[in-house]
Structures are given as structure tokens and as C-alpha cells.
């Protein structure tokens, strides 16, 4: 059992949990994830380790309420426990001084991009952060990101804050401007890191493809064990099958088959509905 030391509401649907897990906190690095199981009947779901505090022996997980498991999770309070937390899993992000790096986070994806951004900043990079959400009140970790960025840009789908549009749209404009102000017609950006919904990462990959900027995405596939044992998380990278949990979660965005990722993410959509409906029915939640 893993105890919830603190819980913060980041938006209506997004919570941040600080969980006692000293061994995981000791080893966790930016980019890695954990697999959790809420209770005995629960499914195993992956959540990125949003941060870790080695001194206090805690890790933090950020979760958005979408299906039954995340709804159950969001119902847990400070002092409650999660049955199983396994981690740190997956490979850590590559952290070194690349030069100028653009860090992009969309929706809950801002949570995992934050520790990577912080470490990249510490490593001496010039950080341009672009974060976005559907609407102003859904934007998370703005201050945290501001603290570790040299430039911070905000986007919202509905225009309620910052740039009106997707992060990928803003990125394109930014890169165009960067190029036009540059007489060698060569980009000054060494690397782009983008984490968010699959569509967003696919769109970012399209923007950077022509300028050949190395672009890293962290894939959010369906998982079971998280240790390379089942293959539920398989994706196609550069025409080859890879397991996100052990070969990733980060991959070169220009080699990822996003259509396959999007399709495989939908395998259990109907089932999730069934399961959630039953739960809502049992708990008399509004349908």
C-alpha cells in the first residue's frame, strides 16, 4: 500500500498526488513512469512520474479524470492509500546541454514535461516552453513552468488565454519567425520535446519534420505490466515494432507511426464505457 501524503486540485478534473514511495523517489528520473493499481479489482494503468522528492521519499503523479480508474483515483483523499505503485519504469529522458530547446506540454502532458524542462534548464539549456490547454481554467503548472523557462508561451484552444489555437500552430509561427530572423536560414533550435495527447504530438512532429529539428515525444500507449512482458504497449517506430514501456516511452517523433498509436489507444474505449457506466450506476453518480 502506498499512502497519499498530499493531494492538490490543479483544475476541476486534474489532481496532483504526492505519494510515499521512498525507493521509487530515490531512483526516479525525468521521463520515467509508474504503473498503479488502485484496488484488488483494479486495472493497471501507467502514469508519468511528474516529480520526485528524494529527501521526503515521495513521488508525485498527476491524473486527469477520464475513465473509471482515474475517477476512482480522483476520489481518493490525503491519507488514503493506493494498492500498488510500481516504478520507476521506462528509460529516463536524455538530459544534457543541447543549446536551445523547445519544451511543449499539452493538457495533462504539461505535468511530465515539467521535470524534464527543469533538468534541461539545470543542464544549461536555453528553454522555450510552450504549454497549452483547451481553456484557461484547464491550464496546469503555469508557474512551475515559468520558473524553469527562459521564454514561456501559453496557448488555449478557445482563446481564453494566450495564443488562440493549438501548441503546434504556435510552434509553427515561432519557428517561421526564428527562421526569417536568421540569415543562414538555419534553425537555432537544437531539439523539441513534446508531451501531450497523441494528436498534439503528431501535429508537432509534422511542424518540425521539414526543418529536421530533432523532436522527442513520450508515447502514452495502453499498458499492462510495464516491464516488457505483454506487448500491449507496442507501437511502430521507424517501421519496427517497439514496446513503449521498455524501449521508450520517449521516441524520435519523426519515426513514430501516430496513426497506429491513435488506433491502438482506442482498443478498449467501448469497454471503458461499459465499466464506467456500471460503476456510476452502482455509485449512483450522475450518468
Amino acid at each position, binding site marked *: 500500500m502506498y499512502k497519499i501524503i498530499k493531494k492538490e486540485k490543479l483544475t476541476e478534473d486534474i489532481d496532483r498526488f504526492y505519494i510515499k514511495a521512498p525507493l521509487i523517489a530515490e531512483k526516479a528520473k525525468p521521463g520515467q513512469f509508474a504503473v498503479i493499481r488502485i484496488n484488488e*479489482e*483494479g*486495472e493497471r494503468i501507467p502514469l508519468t512520474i511528474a516529480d520526485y522528492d528524494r529527501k521526503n521519499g515521495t513521488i508525485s503523479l498527476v491524473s486527469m479524470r477520464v475513465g473509471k480508474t482515474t475517477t476512482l483515483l480522483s476520489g481518493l483523499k490525503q491519507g488514503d492509500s493506493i494498492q500498488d505503485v510500481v516504478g520507476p*519504469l521506462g528509460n529516463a529522458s536524455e538530459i544534457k546541454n543541447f543549446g536551445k530547446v523547445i519544451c511543449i506540454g499539452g493538457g495533462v502532458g504539461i505535468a511530465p514535461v515539467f521535470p524534464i524542462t527543469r533538468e534541461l534548464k539545470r543542464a544549461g539549456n536555453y528553454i522555450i516552453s510552450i504549454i497549452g490547454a483547451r481553456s484557461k481554467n484547464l491550464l496546469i503548472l503555469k508557474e512551475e513552468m515559468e520558473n524553469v523557462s527562459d521564454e514561456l508561451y501559453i496557448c488555449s484552444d478557445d482563446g481564453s488565454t494566450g495564443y488562440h489555437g493549438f501548441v503546434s500552430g504556435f510552434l509553427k509561427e515561432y519557428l517561421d519567425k526564428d527562421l526569417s530572423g536568421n540569415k543562414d536560414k538555419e534553425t537555432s533550435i537544437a531539439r523539441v520535446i513534446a508531451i501531450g495527447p497523441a494528436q498534439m504530438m503528431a501535429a508537432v512532429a509534422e511542424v518540425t519534420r521539414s526543418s529536421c529539428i530533432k523532436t522527442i515525444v513520450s508515447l502514452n500507449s495502453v499498458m499492462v505490466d510495464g516491464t516488457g512482458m505483454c*506487448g500491449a504497449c507496442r507501437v511502430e517506430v521507424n517501421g519496427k515494432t517497439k514496446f513503449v514501456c521498455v524501449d521508450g516511452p520517449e521516441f524520435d517523433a519523426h519515426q513514430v507511426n501516430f496513426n497506429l498509436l491513435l488506433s491502438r489507444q482506442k482498443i478498449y474505449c467501448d469497454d471503458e464505457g461499459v465499466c464506467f457506466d456500471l460503476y456510476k450506476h452502482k455509485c449512483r453518480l450522475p450518468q
Partner: protein
Amino acid sequence: MAKGISKKELKKEKIPRVAMPEQDPEKRSGNFNEVTLGYTEEDALREASRCIQCKNPKCIKGCPVEIDIKEFIKLIREKKFDEALEKIREKNGLPAICGRVCPQEDQCEKECILGIKDDPVAIGRLERYVADREMRHIAEGIKKCAWSKVTKKCTKEKVAVIGSGPAGLVCAAELAKMGYRATIFEALHKPGGVLVYGIPEFRLPKEIVLKEIEYVKSLGVKIEVNMVIGKILTIDDLFKNGFKAIFVSTGAGLPYFMGIPGENLNGVYSANEYLTRSNLMKAYKFPECDTPIVKGLRVAVIGGGNVALDSARTAKRLGAEKVYLIYRRSEEEMPARDEEIEHAREEGIEFQLLANPVEIAGRNGWVNKIRCIRMKLGEPDDSGRRRPVPIEGSEFEIEIDVAVMAIGQGPNPLLASSVPDLNLTRWGNIKAEAVTGKTNIRGVFAGGDIVTGAATVILAMGAGKSAAAAIDEYIRTGIW
């Protein structure tokens, strides 16, 4: 007539092998309860009476851990059931499990003299009978639990065991019996390895595995779940934390795919995922349990081993109307246990033998067809089995909703990749000395499927047991 058997001995083989009581095929293919119900006392006595108590019993040599089969059967005949169980336990700590899942027809029963002219003695069923009998008696309060409910205190050196499958469980149990403080680190949230995540309930009830694990714990073994070694702790960390020796028994958990087009379509599973969802995560109880599984009406399973048959029979129980088992050789070469093949047929699994998939086709991201080619058997290959060769122009298609790839598993590289110096074979298995399980790294032993490649429960147990003895010697003498 076989040499060395007297006429009198052969004459005795009049009683036919006692059939195993089973759930009716039609009924059982709709539930996950155990298929075989186990012998009654009468059945057991009758079957035991078939044993001719050979002077030179060959069955014992057929057993990978050399259980004194002749003696335990004699004890059953004398109705000394508890003593019979003790006799088995001298060599095999998991009789209720092995009685159910060992491929007896390739081991002890293959060597049984009766088998020359008749059916061999049902050694596995007798083994299971005495083990089940004790469990029943304990549950009914007739017998006191064979082990103390109070966990024993071990005081000797600390030993780490990585992986809680049969190899790890037995190794840790043996070490604890010798007084070592053994800790098992398991990656999943439940201990048991393949016994819990792979082999289905209808063949090996999880309650039995749980009881065996309780027994191992009662010996003083600590089990820490949710610990992926190589990630949360490395082998070096374990040594630094005071473990004097380490036994690696991480199994063969890496699923192989065929590398044919369409394998990443929705509805295509590795057998590991399919079985893990159903067994470990209880997807068959969905939506009461939260883990979903795609329940196709038409399911194709590719492979011919126990894993394939378990997947096919699971599909049937999940509600499939048609289940095809596609295997590239003929039934004779199928590595699965005979009993499972028979049960699968009874349950209506359709065998597509001498056929091999060449492509999986789909619509809107979902599998809808599997294209196969007919095969014929050519010359024997390295394994001694005749090599299947495709027959040109013989392609055919089967319409399906789900495909399960059960063509084999390799060693999971996760742990090994965190120990760069560890010697591995070409296929990624850990190189370890026979019997002792010593690897090239001082203090690190290995055994079970991670060394042999996917094999059997009994071989994994045997490896765990002999490694425990080697670990004891190493710790006592310090000699590597």
C-alpha cells in the same frame, strides 16, 4: 516382451487406467472452474494397485527431480496417504501444482513399464490426489496444517531471489529451511510467476498456488511485490544492501511475434497479454473487475504448446463461438501436454494443423482475417522434429475477430541489461553452470526459464532447489 520383467509382473496389468473425473466439456467451456476434478480415494487406490512395483523402477529416472515414485505409490496402496505425500515432498515441494501441470507423458509415465503394452500408471494423478487430500483435510479441520502458522525466524545471511515463479519460490523455500533470510523480489503485484499470470484457473486453480506461497512464507521467506529489479534496485544495490548471494529466476517473459504484416492491429494479442489480462487481472470477470479484454466471436490462436492451448481454451470460455488453433507442424509434434490437446478437442477447438500464418489483415485498424499457408513436413531440424515447409500456392483465409500469438517467449532483457557484465547466450538467456546455477558474476546464481528458455515448472523447481544448495555452500565456504 521387455527385458527383465517376469511374466507374473505383466499378467498383473488387468485393471485399466482409472479415468480422471472431469467437468462435462460443454458445461466447462462456459466456465473457468477446474476441468479435472481429481481422483476419489477409491480411484486412487485402484490406480495405485496397477503399479507392478518394478525391481528397477524406470519411472524415477524419468522424473526430473527423481521423486521416489515406486515408494509413494506403495504407500498409497497401504492407505498411508500422508506418508506418501511426505515421500513426494522429499524431492518436490509443489506436488499439487506438479500433479496438475507436469508433462508426465514425456517424463515418469513415459518410462513406466506398463506403458509398453498398456496405459502407464497415472503417476501425476496420484501425486495430485495425495496433495489435494491433505489440503482438503486441513480445510476440513481433520488434519492440522503441516506447517506452522507462525512465521519461522531465519537468522543466517540475507539472500535475494529475483522473480517468484516456481524456480524462485523453491529456491527461497530451501534457503529458508536452511536458516537463511531469503527475500523474493517480484515485478508484478502478485507472486507466483507463470503459475498466476499464465496458466489459467481452469487448469491450475489460483487458490492452490496461493496455499503453496503461504507455505513458502511460513518458512520465513519475505516476498516483496512491485519490485522490478534492474529499475528500482540493481544487482549492485542488492549486494550493497547486505545480500550475500542473489538467485535470478526471472523466467521467459518476453513475448515473440512472427514479424508478419498486421500483427499490431487491434485485436491481435501476445499470449502473454491475453492470459495476463484474463488470469492475473481477471478480465473474465469484466466489468466487475476493471481490466478489459477483446472478446471475439472468432478467435485464432497461433502455436502448439501449452501456452497456445491455454489461450485457445480461454478464448472459448470468454465466449468465442469458433476458436482455431493454427500450428505449423502436425499434432504429433505439438509440445503441449497430451491431456490439454485432448481437452481442447473435446471443448470444440478447431485444429488447423500444418498451417502457418503469412499475414493478418484488418479493417479500420481491427483484425478481420488471417491468411495462412499450408505446410508439409520435411527433413528433421536441429530439434529433431521434422521441419515444416510451405506448400506453394496453398494460401487460405480465415475470418477472425481476435488473434493470439503463442509462438514462444524469450528471456526478458530488463534485468540483464542493467548488469552489463553478465554473460548471456546468443538468445539472451543467462549463462549458468548446470546444477549450481553459478553465473560469471561472483555471488550471482540463475535458474529456471531465464537460463533454459521456456521449459517446465518441474525443471524450474529443480533448478531452484539445486541452486539453493550451491548458494549455501558458497556462503559457508566463500569459494566461488
